[in-house]
């Protein structure tokens, strides 16, 4: 059974600071996704990482994937209040016959304070 673990689960940051969210998973997969969820809202796709060593950046967020270590990171640079949300990583099941079902971590609730 594929397990996806995120840490930390809660993160309180000051504006302007940097931090990293970690996502470990338990079995082979070369596809990992990061989503953002605002309270009461749907999931917004942030990044799709499709190969070992993939790195993607959008604004103050940068995501990377190390498939050998089964680890993805979401790095936040110079946090601003607008980044406050819950961030989920999700690993894709891509074994033979699977249609790409996503297994999610528990999410990291990020709160950025002035």
């Amino acid at each position, binding site marked *: 059974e594929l397990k996806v673990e995120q840490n930390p689960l809660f993160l309180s940051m000051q504006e302007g600071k940097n931090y990293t969210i970690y996502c470990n998973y338990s079995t082979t997969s070369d*596809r990992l*996704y990061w*989503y953002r969820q605002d309270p009461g*809202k*749907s*999931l*917004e*796709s942030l990044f*799709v990482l*499709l190969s070992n060593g993939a790195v993607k950046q959008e604004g103050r967020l940068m995501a990377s994937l190390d498939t050998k270590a089964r680890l993805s990171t979401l790095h936040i640079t110079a946090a601003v209040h607008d980044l406050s949300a819950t961030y*989920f990583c*999700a690993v*894709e099941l*891509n074994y033979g*016959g*699977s*249609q*790409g*079902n*996503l*297994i*999610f*971590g*528990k*999410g990291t609730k990020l709160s950025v304070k002035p």
Partner: protein
Amino acid sequence: EPEVTQTPSHQVTQMGQEVILRCVPISNHLYFYWYRQILGQKVEFLVSFYNNEISEKSEIFDDQFSVERPDGSNFTLKIRSTKLEDSAMYFCAIRPGTFSRETQYFGPGTRLLVL
């Protein structure tokens, strides 16, 4: 970004009643998924639907659940006899590409409350 709408946005039902949740992708897609999120918890996969049939389902997706595309566009999730623990946010997701190289886009969700 592909658009997906879901109806209703909220539904309150009595335990034991049937509910049908609808997902309407704006354009044609091959891959459809249902996920649920119990309040404050992680998102859980329920079922995937490809080429008009179920391709995979989780342990949560028992005999009380069913999915179909009745008219080739709407994608529905039916819960035959709801239980209290079915209360959750239900998300439909689509994958637009022919190959699994794109992300899954999530609809706005249906909040289901079973009393």
